[in-house]
Every structure is written in C-alpha cells, then in structure tokens.
C-alpha cells in the first residue's frame, strides 16, 4: 500500500467516522442518557436530508439549506418528543422499540408520499465540488474535508457540554432518576425535550451533509441507524467520548475493510469488530454507568 493511498483512506475513514459521530452523539444521548431506545433516529437523518434538499432547491444556498434543515429537524424532534415520546421514557425498552419502529414506517411512507419514491441527487456548488491537495500529489475532495471539520467541531462542543457543563450533569442525573432531579428543582421535562431535539437536529445535520455526497432517498436512515447503533454500543451506551472514538474506529475499519477484504466480508467488518469488543468488554469501551 502506498503512503498516498493509506493517507487518503485514513481521511476517508475519518470522514465516515465523523459523519457517524453526528448520528451517534445524538443517539447515545437519547439512548444512554435519557434511556430511550429511539429507532426513529434514522428518520431524523432522512428528514434532515429532505429538508435540506428542498431548501437547497428553493434557495440555491447550501448554508441556508443546512441551517434550515437543522432548525427544521430540531423542531420536529422536539414536537415528537412532546407529543409522543416523552410518555415512553418510563416504559420498557421493548415498548420504545415498537413505538419508534412504528415511527420509522410512518416517516418513510410520509416522505414517499410527499417527495415521491425516487431518490434525489443533489449537485454541490462548484466551489465545493473539487478537490484540494492536502499533501502534494494526493488530492482530496473539499466537501469531505468540510464534513471532517464539522464533525470534529461538533464532537468537541458536545464533549464540553455533556461532561463539563452543569447542564450535562443535570441531563445525566435526570437520566438515572427523573423524579429525584425534579424534586431537586430541575425542570427535567423541558431539558429532555431540548436535548432530544438537539440529538435529532444533529442527526438531521448528518443527513444534510450526506445528501450531496450520497443520495436523498426513502429509508436512507435505516441502514445508517444500524451502523450508528453499532457505534454507540462499541463506545459504551451513553458515553459521548466513547461514541466519538467508536465512530472513528468504525469509520476506519469499515474503509480499510472495504479495501483489504472481498466485498461481502468487508460488510461484516464492523460487526465482527463489535462482537469482539463486546466479548472482551460486555459494556463497550467506555461504560457510562459503573
């Protein structure tokens, strides 16, 4: 393997990883911290992509589209939490699985009805469509670089928010014992709604960024959801730091698996990785609760 190829693949792995992290951070918050198994997280990814695609068509500005989609999914997530999901926090995980599975079906069909069954393919503006030579002789697509940077920024922000800020403490406390945190004077209801919305919006952001790279289509969130689940489980459910490392790990091993292994075996890489890690550490790499 040449050094250029290696470097390029590392970047590819990072790009996939940071993308996954945008998904995983939101899911691990909702999943591990708020104790809600939200399979519909993939739907937020999809909605983000569709919102962005539509806004992009209307305005022609990628920044506007991304911002609009972020806000759109934020609102959608909060609305969903207020209307339905908040009453599922105390329910059994399986109930949550079933309810959010229902949401997947709903959203997929909704998108099919509103936007049609065929996929959308977005073209990037000329400025982002090319590549730059980070290392001379090894060009790399600008857009993918942007994804990497955006992902890393969000990662840092989230880490600070959750593990350093008082808000983070309250969220974690509320996750383990809602009643108690309320009895101590915290309006956990609103806090959870906001956190849920934020998680959804991050997924939406991931979808927005994936749109021009891949395709905007019905069900695009489903397979991403599974990979995201793999990530947060490897990282340790509820741990943002774990989700970050696991995202990069999964991104890199998937990319290199694809290069070094035959096609179907390559698809297995991340699952083998997960099984091995869980075998050695049944709570993931960074178990959030002792």
């Amino acid at each position, binding site marked *: *393997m*040449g050094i*250029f*190829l290696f470097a*390029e*693949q590392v970047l*590819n792995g990072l*790009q*996939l990883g940071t993308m996954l992290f945008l998904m995983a951070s939101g899911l691990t918050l909702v999943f591990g911290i708020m104790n809600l198994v939200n399979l519909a997280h993939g739907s937020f990814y999809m909605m983000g992509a569709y919102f962005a695609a539509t806004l992009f068509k209307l305005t022609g500005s990628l920044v506007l589209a991304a911002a609009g989609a972020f806000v759109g999914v934020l609102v959608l997530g909060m609305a969903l939490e207020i209307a339905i999901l908040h009453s599922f926090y105390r329910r059994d995980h399986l109930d949550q699985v079933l309810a959010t599975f229902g949401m997947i079906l709903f959203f997929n069909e909704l998108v*099919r009805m509103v936007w049609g*069954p*065929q*996929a959308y*393919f977005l*073209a*990037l503006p000329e400025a982002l*469509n*090319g*590549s730059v030579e980070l290392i001379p002789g090894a*060009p*790399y*697509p*600008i*857009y*993918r670089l942007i994804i990497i940077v955006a992902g890393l920024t969000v990662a840092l922000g989230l880490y600070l928010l959750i593990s350093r800020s008082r808000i983070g403490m309250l969220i974690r406390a509320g996750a383990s014992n809602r009643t108690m945190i309320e009895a101590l004077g915290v309006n956990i209801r609103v806090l959870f709604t906001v956190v849920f919305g934020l998680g959804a919006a991050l997924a939406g952001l991931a979808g927005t960024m994936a749109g021009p*790279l*891949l*395709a905007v*289509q*019905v*069900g695009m969130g489903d397979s991403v959801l599974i990979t995201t689940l793999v990530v947060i489980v490897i990282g340790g459910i509820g741990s943002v730091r774990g989700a970050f490392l696991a995202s990069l790990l999964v991104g890199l091993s998937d*990319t290199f698996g*694809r*290069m070094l292994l035959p*096609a*179907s075996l*390559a*698809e297995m890489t991340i699952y083998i990785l997960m099984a091995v890690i869980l075998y050695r550490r049944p709570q993931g790499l960074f178990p959030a609760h002792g």
Partner: protein
Amino acid sequence: KVKIGFISTFSGPQGVLGRELMDGFSLALKNLGGKLGGAEVTVIQGDDQGKPDIGVQLAEKMVERDKVDVVTGINFSNVLLAVAKPVLDSKTFLLSINAGPSQLAGKDCNPYYFNVAHQNDNVPEAMGQFLTAKGVKTVYLLAPNYPAGKDMLGGFKRFFHGRVVGEVYTQFNQPDYAAELAQIRQAKPDAVFFFYPGGMGINFLKQYAQSGLKGQVPLYGPSFSLDQTILPAVGDAAVGTFSTAFWSETANNKANKKFVTDFEAAYGRIPSPYAATAYDGAYLLDAAIKAAGSTKNKDALRKALETVKFDSVRGKFSFNTNHNPIQDYHLYEVTKDSAGRLINSYRSEVFTEHKDAYSTTCTM
C-alpha cells in the same frame, strides 16, 4: 382482456428505473389506444424495491391471485432470476424489458421466457471490442455484486484483450465509493470501465469527479451507466465519457423519433434505454397478441412472440433461438445538445447483428 403483471423497482435509489420502464410501457399503451392486440389491458403494478424475495412474493401473488397472462417490468437480473421460477413453473409468460441474466439465456432458458431488451453481456462486449481496437493497455473494472454485474464485466473481458489491473465488485446499492476511488488512483490504469446503473451511477460519477480523478483516467461504461436516468443529476462531470449501447435517445430511425418526441412531450424529459425497451416490449406484445388472436392459446402466443415483426425503436430487431435479441451495438459519447442538455451522441458502429454467447447452451 389481457392482464399484465408489472414488477419493477419503484422506490429507493434505483426507483428511477421502475419509473422509466413504467413510463415507456405506458406511453406505448397510450399510443396503442390502451389495448394490446385489440384486447383491453389491465396492468397490475408491484414494487420489488430491488429485492429478489419481495419480487418472488409479488410474482406469486400476481400469478396465483390475479392470474396475470404476462409478467414483465423487472429491471434487476437478481430479481428476474428469483421471479423466473414461480412464473415459468406456472407457464405464465415472462417478458423481460430490461434485465438479461446469462442463466436465462443459456442453460435455464425457457419457452415462456422472452427478453426484448438485451443480454447483459452484450453492451460491455461492445466496449471491450472498442477499447481493444483503441489500443488501451490496462483497465480497471467496477460493478455491483449481483448477476448483471458479473455478466457485464464477463462480457467486457470476453472482448477486451489488454490487462485487467483491478476488478472490484461493490455491494449492491453501495452509496459511497471513496475507498474504491482511492484504489483506482493507486492502480493508475489507462481506463476505467464501470457498470453502475441508476442511483449507483450518479454517486459514482459525482464522486469520481470530486476526487479529482476525472482529468487523469478516462471513464467508459455501458449505456446504463451514462443514460438519461443519470446524466441530468451528474451534470458536466460526465461530458466526454464514452459508452456503448444498442439504443440511444439520438438513434436515427422513424420509430425512435416518434418515441423520443412523444416521451418528452408526455413526461418532460429525455427517455432512457429502459423506457425504450419497455416501449418496444409493449409493441412486441401488441403484435404477438394480434397475431395469436388472444392470450388464451399459449402455444400460439409463443410462436407469435418468436417470429412476429414490430417497429422497434432500435431499427433492426429479431429473436435468437434462446429468445434473446439479435441487434446492433454502437459507440456513443456524452455531449451537450443545443439546449445544453447532456445527450449520448453517435460515434461509430461496433457490432452488427450481434448474438449473445449463451444461445448455444440453450436447449428448449
């Protein structure tokens, strides 16, 4: 009355293919006054989502419950192969208007199976022939990992005599090709031959351009990688790319001129080969049912299908002994038309009255 079961991929990244096929077929039906061979037509539509198992379920339902006369519409070879058994076992006609898996052309050929489009190997065979003649030394091959992908690259290699420096089968419907592109850059081939239909093609072409490879290694593909389901979404990144095909939107014959004009008028876009073969399929059925009188006498209908003549948008068309087409193949280049839209422009003839490689192994 004629009942047609139309199974196709209507959703997902490949959903455009189903739409193209359906639109082409419907256009023909409209031109034929809603009738095939004078009989009223009911079309029952089913979305296989590109998945063989769903295709099988749909086909069984159509054959058993709806009792259709003909199953058609299928765009993916893997779905077609899976659907073939329940349909053909019940002695229902299976008319392919796109997919052409080698198995059904060869050892698994069947009296009730007809392919009015192409056998998968043929279009790439033409490109193999062309690149060999052009003197290309090394080539890198990519296709999705499913029967048509295998057939396509197999066909290419049958006529390409240079060196294959890489042959990659990616997961079906894989959206991201970053890893493969990095490897192409490393391999430095003279040319890349890729078969990625529909949404896969769009993603591949876009990412190929973004990665900066476009100026370095020229791309070649079968028409399905560069047709009208792909070009509008890809834009200028595709200009100058060569493909081989048995049909293009610019094909110069009377039937095709009418077809392309009607299609554009009806749907506001240029048709793709899928629409073209679907259109032909309807005309074939019309002619055959007319000749056989009805769909009730299956033997008569089969005879009619084998021999009947119809106005193909491809010009010359006839069936080989294995019910697969004998037709011409040409080279095209992606250019811009006067309105600035991307189109495939005729460059040269590669094969005339070309037959597939499997007809000899077919014993019916």
